[in-house]
């Protein structure tokens, strides 16, 4: 039998010219948060990448319109579920802005500390998971071990490791636990130690560096145009951080720097997060010094803040206060507000509309991930198939936030 193409010269050999279609996700180990990318491949080069969010959809904003304002807290826990405390605080600040409430000094420090702990959790998870997806399993375990320590503190404070629902309109659910400061001071150096060990294993690893460097590059102008914020924007060299640009809580009273990248590639995003972990620890240490050991943690306005529980059981006044707040909800003044804070992934904005009743009329979320994921196809096109995992991982898309 003669070979079919025996007479053809190699130069004439025709390969298929049609790009190959490939579905990546929505159920794929590296496509965390159930995102789907429909790829057109030419060989291993990505010709077109169609990024589709929406596989994790709960009708989040609509759900907020049926309970009371306070009942939104458990929902916002499930936005960026890697740093739920930041979402809690952001929402509380938004409602307080609408109500014209100012929380006590002690609560502001407490919120600052808890928020930065949540940011630690967010960045540790992102960097750890990205390393793992590139095959570096050990640093993942170390960083997640550090995250467990953060969660231990949060569990001690809130009773829950992940979905704390700890924020309240006009304060927090509980004051800091007795040994909150001691626990933080004992844990933070350990976390820093684990981070240092983990990064030693990665940043001197040729394979790891090669897979990140110059991959998924984006210019500062492009990132700004896409609406990027947070570490992803700062990796391009744009030093925009809500905590510095529009300080809230106590961020204008503490010293910290904004780590920025230079090239806007995946390695820069990895390094910016590592830098921010150190800055967060710096903020927490300053806040621990300045937070008072006693004093009120919540406002004392009975229109918004629940009474002490023992009073509810023994006096009619506190019973009424409890009843009105639970059954009818705090009556938030009629109006609208946009309030924004620095979430784990960037500017987390809440646009709230109140019709003056105990139930939100509209809760619109501006999740940082949504805009960032919108830029993913631009980062991928023209790159190789194997670049998807680190590029996507470094964007830190959280499905719960992309519920749109």
């Amino acid at each position, binding site marked *: 039998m003669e070979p079919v193409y025996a007479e053809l010269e190699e130069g004439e050999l025709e390969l298929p010219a049609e790009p190959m279609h490939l579905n990546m996700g929505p159920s794929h180990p590296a496509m965390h948060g159930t995102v789907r990318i429909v790829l057109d491949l030419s060989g291993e080069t990505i010709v077109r990448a169609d990024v589709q969010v929406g596989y994790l959809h709960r009708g989040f904003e609509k759900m907020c319109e049926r309970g009371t304002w306070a009942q939104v807290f458990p929902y916002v826990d499930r936005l960026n579920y890697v740093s739920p405390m930041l979402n809690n605080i952001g929402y509380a600040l938004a409602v307080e802005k609408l109500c014209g409430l100012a929380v006590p000094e002690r609560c502001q420090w407490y919120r600052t500390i808890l928020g930065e702990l949540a940011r630690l959790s967010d960045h540790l998870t992102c960097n750890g998971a990205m390393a793992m997806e590139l095959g570096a399993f050990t640093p993942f375990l170390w960083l997640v071990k550090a995250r467990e320590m953060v969660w231990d503190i949060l569990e001690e404070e809130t009773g829950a490791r992940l979905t704390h629902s700890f924020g309240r309109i006009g304060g927090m659910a509980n004051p800091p636990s007795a040994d909150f400061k001691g626990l933080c001071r004992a844990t933070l150096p350990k976390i820093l130690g684990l981070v240092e060990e983990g990064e030693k294993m990665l940043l001197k690893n040729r394979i790891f560096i090669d897979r990140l460097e110059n991959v998924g590059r984006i210019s500062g102008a492009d990132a700004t145009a896409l609406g990027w914020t947070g570490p992803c924007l700062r990796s391009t060299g744009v030093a925009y951080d809500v905590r510095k640009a529009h300080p809230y809580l106590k961020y204008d009273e503490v010293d910290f720097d904004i780590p920025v990248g230079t090239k806007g590639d995946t390695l820069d995003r990895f390094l910016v997060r590592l830098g921010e972990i150190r800055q967060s620890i710096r903020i927490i240490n300053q806040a621990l010094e300045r937070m008072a050991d006693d004093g009120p943690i919540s406002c004392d*306005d*009975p*229109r918004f803040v629940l*009474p002490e529980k023992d*009073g509810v*059981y*023994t*006096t*009619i*006044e*506190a*019973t*009424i*206060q409890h*009843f*009105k707040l639970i*059954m*009818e909800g705090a009556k938030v003044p009629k109006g609208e507000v946009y309030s924004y804070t620095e979430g784990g992934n960037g500017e987390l904005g809440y646009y709230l509309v109140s019709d003056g009743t105990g139930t939100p009329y509209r809760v619109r979320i501006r999740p940082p991930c949504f805009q960032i994921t919108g830029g993913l196809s631009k980062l991928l096109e023209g790159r190789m198939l194997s670049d998807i995992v680190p590029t996507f991982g470094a964007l830190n898309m959280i499905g719960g936030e992309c519920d749109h």
Partner: protein
Amino acid sequence: MPTFKLDGKPIPFDAGETIIKAAWKQGVDIPHYCWHPGLSAPANCRMCLVEIAPKPGARPVTLDVLEWDAKAGTYRTTQKPKLQPSCYTAAAEGMEVLSDSSEHVRKARRDVQEFLLLNHPVDCPICDQSGECKLQDYWLEHGRYQKRMRDEPVHKPKGVVFGPTIVYDGERCVMCTRCVRFMAEVAKDPVLDMRERGNLNEIFVAPGRQLDGHYTFMTEHVCPVGALTTKDFRFKARVWFLRTASAVCQGCATGCNAHLDYDPRYNRAYRYRPRDNEKVNQFWMCDEGMLTYKQAHDGRLVQAKVRGEAASMAQAFEEAKSLFAGVPKESVGLVFSAAHSVEDNWMLREVGATVLGSRSFYASGAADGYEDRILIHRDKNSNTAGVKQIAPSAKALQALVEDVGSGRVTHVIALGAAAASATDALRGATVITVAAHQGPLADVSTILLPATSWAEQSGTYVNSKGIKQVSDKALEPLGASRPAWRHLLDLAGALGYEVSTTSLKQIRAQVLGGATVEALAPSPVTAPAE
């Protein structure tokens, strides 16, 4: 119209009107417990106190008071304006009244609230008033203090049975005497009064009597707190789960306006509350009427029947087709119902008279009953006047019995099941009954079609004064029931006729001459929710 100023806002008033009533008419609520727009004003709760600026040149009316001076650690004498009860002070031209804007008024309200709650039990979780209680509302609006008294509160009788319908709780009572005044002034039966003084003050029933009669439920509805509760609604539902529809009471021809409170989760009505309407029932309703909400569930027909056997709607229409085949139009009698809406009756006329060609009209309805000079009408049907407009020539049901006996009418289409006279003789005819409730005309029916009650459909009713009023839909139809007009429409279809009017909107356009529902409903007194 003369005006005065309330917190700087001009409020018009009629001569002799009190400040609180003139403000209430403009939708401005001055907090109050004892004042009620339909009752006299005793000015005893002190919640509606306002500051009235002295006339130019006049000496201000002030009180000497002692004020704690924290710096000096002692009391010092000072003066504050003497506040006036706005429920008892007549408005005067150019008067400057300060309510929310006066610091003294705000403090007075807070202090009155503290007094009223001083001995109040911690009852909200078990109190039926919870969720619509003025003590709760005003504490959050005007109180916002925490308990200062640490002594054991004064205990008073709880669960006192006042009569067959009402239970009294002395500890929750704020002694506003609305119930006392209602019984004396509106029900004209001064059976309630108060005894003892101060802390021991309580409402009681005249010795040898109990709180009975036709207007006991109203004492519960005028009660601003949870002191009076009805046995009927007690512990049945929590008000925050209830939704409300604007209904018209079906108990008699007065057509009292009511709120029908129902729980959408169980599709169940729980109570009536009077809905203010100056032209019809002012603020009141009678006991019998208040209990008619039960008719939304009791004695209902929810399944089609053919000769007493349960049947599907299709079977019923099939049977109707064969029974009515070739029947001459003179032999068909139509029974209009004074208990059904104008729309239902109109559709019966459209189908029976215009399409089938019947000219024998009769009217059914419940028998007359008790009447008084307050609200209760002798005619126990909600829409007698409406039927008179639709079928002015309709004869009494007795005439139908005679016509069936004489063989002049052999086929009957009847709306509603109620009858004031004997109907057994109708068994000789073929009767199609479209009804919501069981009754004599349902018993004699050959074919029975289940209709929705007034609570499950929007309908127009004409009361004894000729006022057209719309009762809104509250519940979803029970079982297989559907609006009667829809059954009649389908019946026409089954008999091979076509009726061009197929929606409630079209019926209304025809029957009411294009008047909108909003135009029909007599405008209620503008007032903040009681």
